[in-house]
């Protein structure tokens, strides 16, 4: 039933432990780039890609270099070296280089999307949900298969959240929202209400 375990992790990270609505991670680009569905889809896809790429990569680095005693495969004298204090900087370095890659690809393939995403594309590097993915992976001691399922699921969950709110924001564009709440204010409130809707899944045991 190993496959079912992976599948459960995958579903759980989309709906039950959604990056946005359960942990409120990655809010800045979620709020800033959700003005229309098209760019939201672009950014969402970029986040899925980066998250699914970096978390397993970080898993490999963590288990090959950073865990206590994991350097033993290089030489027996390194058996008691613990490099886990380097984990943050390593994770960030991996994420930053993955984002560079995405940026180059997007610029080449779709200059329009590149223009629409603007500064938020390189900023994926500091998107909390990406680093969060790697840190959750480390904290929960996932194995490689779980890490892949988890990071793909988290990415899709984030994608769903930003696309849904982008559609809602397009819909309320012409609503008579009270002046002080226009823009970010109402977006925060919508996010809260969406969080309530997502709470229907919390508590499901898979």
């Amino acid at each position: 039933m190993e496959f079912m375990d992976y599948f459960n992790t995958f579903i759980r990270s989309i709906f039950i432990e959604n990056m946005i609505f359960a942990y409120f991670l990655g809010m800045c680009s979620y709020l800033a780039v959700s003005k229309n569905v098209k760019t939201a889809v672009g950014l969402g896809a970029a986040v899925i890609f980066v998250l699914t790429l970096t978390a397993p990569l970080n898993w490999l680095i963590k288990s090959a270099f950073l865990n206590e005693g994991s350097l033993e495969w290089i030489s027996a004298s390194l058996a008691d070296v613990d490099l886990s204090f380097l984990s943050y900087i390593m994770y960030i370095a991996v994420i930053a280089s993955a984002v560079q890659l995405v940026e180059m690809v997007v610029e080449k393939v779709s200059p329009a999307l590149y223009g629409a995403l603007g500064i938020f594309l390189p900023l994926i590097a500091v998107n909390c949900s990406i680093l969060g993915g790697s840190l959750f992976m480390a904290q929960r001691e996932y194995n490689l298969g779980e890490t892949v399922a988890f990071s793909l699921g988290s990415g899709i969950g984030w994608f769903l959240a930003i696309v849904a709110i982008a559609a809602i924001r397009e819909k309320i564009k012409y609503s008579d929202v009270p002046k002080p709440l226009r823009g970010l204010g109402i977006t925060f409130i919508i996010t809260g209400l969406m969080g309530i809707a997502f709470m229907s899944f919390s508590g499901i045991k898979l």
Partner: protein
Amino acid sequence: MLADRLKEKVSKALLDLAENIKPKVAKGKPFHFLHSFYDGNYTLMFQPGTTTKGKVHLRDGIDSKRTMFTVVIAMIPCLLFGMWNAGHQHFAPIIEIAERLISAISLDSLSQEVLWAKINALAAVDGGLADAMYEAGRRNLEGPELLSYIMPSIENIADAGFFSKFIYGAIRVLPIVVVSYVTGLGIEFAVAQMKGHPIAEGFLVSGMLIPLIMPVTIPLWMVVVATAFAVIIGKEIFGGTGMNILNVALTARVFIFFAYPTSISGDKVWIQDLVDGASGATALAQAFEGGVAGLSWSWFDMFIGSIPGSIGETSTLMILIGAAILIATGIGSWKIMLSVMLGAGVMGILLNIVGGMEGVENQFLAVPFYYHWVMGGLAFGAVYMATDPVTASQTEKGKWIYGFLIGFFAILVRVLNPAYPEGIMLAILFFNVFAPLIDHYIVEANIKRRLAYAKG
């Protein structure tokens, strides 16, 4: 003839009254601040006499006020049944106790101590008996005299019929309706006044829906808080009626659900005043515990609706009458209603298959899918709340998808999530959130298809 003349008289009198008040709320007059209140009531009673000035003259007799009223009328069967059922749920267990007590008294089979303990327990849940005891105490009656004095009240309980149940229920239910309307309309009026807009009609429906999805035991202050939250945060800050993204009534319920969970879920909230031994668990709670075998009611009982549950949601029969009204007047979308039921059925069948596999312990999985249609609030949500034209999908194809997913997820959450037995509420909210996205892609697909067609 007489009725016609009376109708004419009354409407003439009302119209005169309205015409009298009109100048007093005109601009610049001292009561001008009440003008939107006046407008709201005037247009509620009469079709406005003004016509459009421009060239477009496509007008229907139905405006949003009449639309809302039709929905309210469609909810009346549920409300009336809910009143009776609230009384029925109160009386059903204690009728039996009163009957046993009467036969025990006539046979003299109980010791005085036990007898009075039982009578006191009964008095604790029945106002009529309590009053009689109090009155007897005031007159210093004791022993057999006291017994013969309160005997009619006990017999009264044992004889409780349709009307006693209905009146008891009405006394419990009507305050919730009044409180919900007063709170919600109060906020609507205040906001309309502040913005200088005419009063929007949106709360007519929500104000009736909110009581119908509450348990009859809900404290009234909670109804006030939840209604205020739903109207302000759920609707007014989005710009009022027609702009909200989540169904207002469901927002009120979900607010109580997460803020005061013990008041709206759990197996003891539906019937206050429980006497020893009577169970107040809802059908969903029972099915969750023991599958079909654990249910105290047959499928037909649940269809008729004489079971514990929120005020308006129990009777699938009454909901069908309401659905017929909504569909006949073209106000509720039959596509959404049908597809919610379809989605629930499909999910139910899938779960039945899983539940039929070896080694599966969860008995709720094996509950036949047609039970899901009549349990809990599925039918009510499908007919009155999923069809809310503001928060549902706007496109025709989208309505099928939207409804189907609601039904599908409602049963999924209901069966698999032990924390929230009532899946329909959260499923509708969840797809309220995704309805704009569904519409977006349907519209995109339409544009693409027509572009391709235009290019030939």
